[in-house]
């Protein structure tokens, strides 16, 4: 499990890769910690680009739940995008679509989260 991140205006896009199973969940939690510190200090949104995640276990989902609670306690927003079919199924089975906003793509998420971040994304991908 690796986690890359990029900032687009007031949104940090974090992109984990691989399987977020029990051993990797702690690594994800540790990798997200400084991002959450930054966003909660400066009022931004977190978008998790899950396009390269092919499995997530209960422990991985717990990490996302903790991140969501932390963001919301600071009036921040958190969402997931580009869920792969298997991960989307797991979100449904775990009833996590009630916990995290899910969007079909990063761009679709940015349309909702932040016009400034969307403009930065379009400029970057143009």
């Amino acid at each position, binding site marked *: 499990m690796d986690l890359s991140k990029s900032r687009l205006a007031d949104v940090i896009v974090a992109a984990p890769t691989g399987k977020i199973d029990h051993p990797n969940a702690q690594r994800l939690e540790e990798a997200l910690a400084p991002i959450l510190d930054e966003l909660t200090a400066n009022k931004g949104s977190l978008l998790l680009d899950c396009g390269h995640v092919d499995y997530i276990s209960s422990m991985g*989902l717990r990490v996302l739940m903790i991140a969501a609670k932390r963001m919301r306690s600071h009036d921040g927003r958190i969402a997931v995008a580009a869920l792969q079919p298997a991960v989307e199924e797991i979100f449904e*089975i*775990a009833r996590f679509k009630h916990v995290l906003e899910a969007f079909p793509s990063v761009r679709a998420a940015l349309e909702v989260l932040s016009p400034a971040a969307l403009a930065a994304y379009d400029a970057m991908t143009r």
Partner: protein
Amino acid sequence: MKCVRFWGTRGSLPVALTASGVRQKIIAALHGASGRSFASDKELSAYVDGLGLAASGTYGGHSPCVEIETGGPEYVLCDLGTGVRPFGQKALARHGAAAPQTYHIFMSHVHWDHIMGFPFFTPAYIPGNRIRIYGGHAVLEEALRRQQAPPSFPVDFSALRANIEFVHLEPGTQYEIAGMQVSLMLQRHGGDSYGYRFAADGKTVIYTTDSEHTLTDVAETTGYVEFFRDADLVVFDAMYSLADAISVKADWGHSSNIVGVELCQMAGARHLCLFHHEPTQSDETISRVLAETRRYEELSRTSKPLHVTAAYDGMEIQL
């Protein structure tokens, strides 16, 4: 051990199928049969069987009571929810009141839904019957006596004429009871609960209800995995969705279907049986959760398949 038989599978509160619920099932069955003809009762039965449990029957609504048929002459039960009432009636019908029996009853804990059937357990009123109630709680006897004390119930515990003994068990000790090796494990639940491991004849059954498995503590998880190790059957509290279990219902003392799958996979168990159904769940909802749990088992599988079922009142699982 020969089989496990479920007399009560609902958690927290007994429920009953409503008139409108029955009506919906009849309408759905008739709709499905529209234009078809059935030449015999056998064909009709095959059609009804094909509808699935949610459409042709019900998961039931008795609170927890599970029988382990050991193959020996003595009865073994887990918990005394309302399911123990039909169990008692069945046992009496089989043996009659004049033939004393021995009942070994293992208690997960003494919350209401797990003890409320005992005042209606007819064999407890019959002299000559022997009832041994096992558990890890020091308040076991007090809880059962108190629920029959005025003004809660009209018949005091002292009116029970069977020979009733309370046996305190300690986690970490293996006991020989009713021809089985029995051990128990402390679980996360308000006021504590205990899970049981029963082993005999090369078969192992785990009864783990009213237990919040979080998997967040490595040592604790390892302990549960070893307790479940290579079990033939794990009867598992899967009351909530994972999202509920780790958010709005965190610390309520119950687990999810997803964690049940993961623990059983880690332990190399063969069969996970979803148990302690949320009382607000309809038959359709439980069937949906079962289908989703089977799918999650496929998605998370790394070695041998885990068989997944959902308990219903009257279900039998052959070991």
